[in-house]
């Protein structure tokens, strides 16, 4: 192998590794942040992986239980709390260590220390504690998730239908005002969504669509129709006209040709468009804030609930919940792109 080839290969792998690190490293640390208990967050520097369980030691002194937590960094049992009130222990274990125990369990475990010296226990941490807390402090989170899905669904439906029709017209036909139309599609994208949302509120109230997901989708679709038209028109342009003409020569109608020839070839692009529509709707929070503040989407709910919150682990948990569906959707889309990988060539 020549030096040049080795250099090229090395650069190639360096780029790949950089991409992997740049994406996966923040993601890994972020997800693990959502699994920490409060106690772990304030241990610094802490281990990269969240603890699965805690080793504790209970002693009995001055008619009180003393709770020590094992600190593996410095290898000793740190005194955390001493009280005779079992309820305080339960709350401490839950809030600080994410350990869910009942008073009876604590009482029966701890009581041996009264006579037999220190009691050592290993308690399993509730890994999903932050997620449960998130759902309990935002009591309408499941409704908000459903709302986000519905809004995204409507947005995809509206923008893909209207947008690809317009995109096909722009790509294949000459008509008066075509250049102006291209520019005005662009113009739509240039108008900040907030700027449409503010005056749209009045119209949506008139139609009774404020605080509904369909109303939100109407505004989300404004930018996405233009985007879809724009992307699909460049894709349709990239598809050889000869193929369509051949199909017409063999007796197919223009519509049949579109359905059987053009659409399958444009499919990866359409999938990409629906991904943009989905993500646009799923990710927005400012439009939802203006038009649907009483019936929030998940993104808005998280912005409101955790926007300025200082608790790292709870914010991280909320954000993970927001990310998962978007990630699942991208994963599905990826399969569609891959099915046509290498088969798009004409």
């Amino acid at each position, binding site marked *: 192998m020549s030096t040049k080839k080795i250099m090229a290969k090395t650069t190639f792998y360096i780029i790949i590794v950089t991409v992997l690190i740049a994406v996966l490293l923040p993601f890994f640390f972020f997800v693990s942040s959502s699994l920490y208990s409060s106690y772990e967050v304030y241990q610094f520097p802490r281990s990269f992986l969240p603890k699965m369980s805690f080793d504790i030691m209970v002693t009995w002194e001055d008619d009180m239980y003393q709770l020590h937590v094992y600190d593996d960094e410095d290898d000793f049992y740190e005194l955390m709390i001493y009280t005779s009130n079992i309820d305080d222990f339960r709350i401490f274990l839950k809030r600080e260590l994410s350990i869910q125990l009942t008073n009876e369990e604590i009482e029966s475990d701890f009581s041996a220390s009264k006579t037999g010296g220190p009691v050592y226990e290993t308690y399993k941490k509730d890994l999903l504690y932050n997620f449960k807390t998130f759902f309990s402090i935002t009591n309408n989170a499941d409704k908000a998730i459903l709302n986000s899905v519905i809004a995204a669904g409507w947005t995809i439906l509206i923008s893909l239908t209207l947008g690809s029709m317009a995109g*096909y017209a722009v790509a294949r036909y000459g008509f008066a005002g075509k250049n102006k139309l291209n520019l005005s599609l662009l113009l739509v994208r240039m108008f900040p969504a907030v700027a449409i949302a503010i005056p749209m509120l009045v119209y949506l109230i008139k139609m009774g669509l404020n605080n509904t997901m369909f109303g939100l989708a109407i505004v989300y679709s404004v930018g996405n129709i233009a985007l879809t038209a724009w992307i699909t028109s460049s894709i349709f342009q990239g598809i050889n006209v000869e193929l369509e003409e051949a199909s017409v020569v063999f007796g197919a109608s223009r519509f049949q040709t579109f359905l059987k020839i053009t659409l399958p070839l444009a499919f990866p692009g359409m999938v990409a468009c629906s991904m943009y529509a989905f993500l646009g709707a799923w990710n927005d929070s400012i439009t939802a804030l203006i038009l649907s503040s009483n019936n929030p989407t998940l993104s808005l709910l998280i912005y409101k609930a955790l926007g300025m919150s200082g608790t790292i682990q709870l914010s991280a948990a909320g954000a993970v919940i927001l990310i998962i569906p978007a990630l699942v959707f991208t994963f599905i889309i990826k399969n569609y792109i891959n099915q046509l990988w290498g088969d798009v060539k004409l």
Partner: protein
Amino acid sequence: MKRRIKKWTPYFLLAPALIYYGFFWIRPVIRAFYESFTNLEGKMSLINYIEVLNEPVFKEAFTNSMLFAVVSVILQFVLAFMLALLLNKKFKGVKLLLFIALIPMAVPPTAVAILWRTGFSTYGWVNNLLMHINLIEQPILWMTADGTSALMFLILIDTWTVLPSVMIILLAGLQNMHKEYEEAGYVFGASKWQVTKDIVIPILKPTIVTAVILRLIAAMQIWMISVMMFGFGRVPFLVERIAYYTDIVPMLENSYKMSLTYSVVVTVIVLTSVTIYLKFSNRQRRI
């Protein structure tokens, strides 16, 4: 008869989108423009624009938005193009790599902000990592950054999340390209760099213009990451002002007018910069 139907086909295809835009875009836009030129009593007036221009943070918000747009778009385009060229190759694991590279795109801005805030807060995972590998002794106070360094911070975060969306447009363009042109270039002895520069980029031109314009438009509208990382007013942007007037002080007498006027200002700026970019890219094509 058939010819007449054919002549009308494009209009049939366009009609739904156009009607939609008449109702849900032009109507609110006109209303916004009109209302930005009226005072609180509903009389024609420039008062809103005077108030916006006189706002102490306006100048900073304007400069930040422009700087952010220019620097981030250039950075993101160069990186995305390199990545798209790489992912357009066929090699083992390319599908997995594509999926991994797409992950940041699927992360909503709210979550992106939280992701990096949990990272860059004093006891966040960035400091934790740096201390573990013994690069630093004490946690660094990242979030106290302001001015240009805070702006650069936001550009990097933005690049992390939008790079895939630029990349996927370019990749789609590359995949739809006829391989023969490239192959012809190699047959005639051109180097990889020459083929990229003289064959791939010119053919890809419409896709590139699309990708850059979409980024330019979106970059001008940044606000969420800035607000969630630094709070309102620390690193002001034009759209951040809109959010400020609709979310934080919606009850002021002129909040509605201020946000409307800001939105008109942003629209005009975006319009101008895209027009300049289009002029520039068209001139290049002629040479």
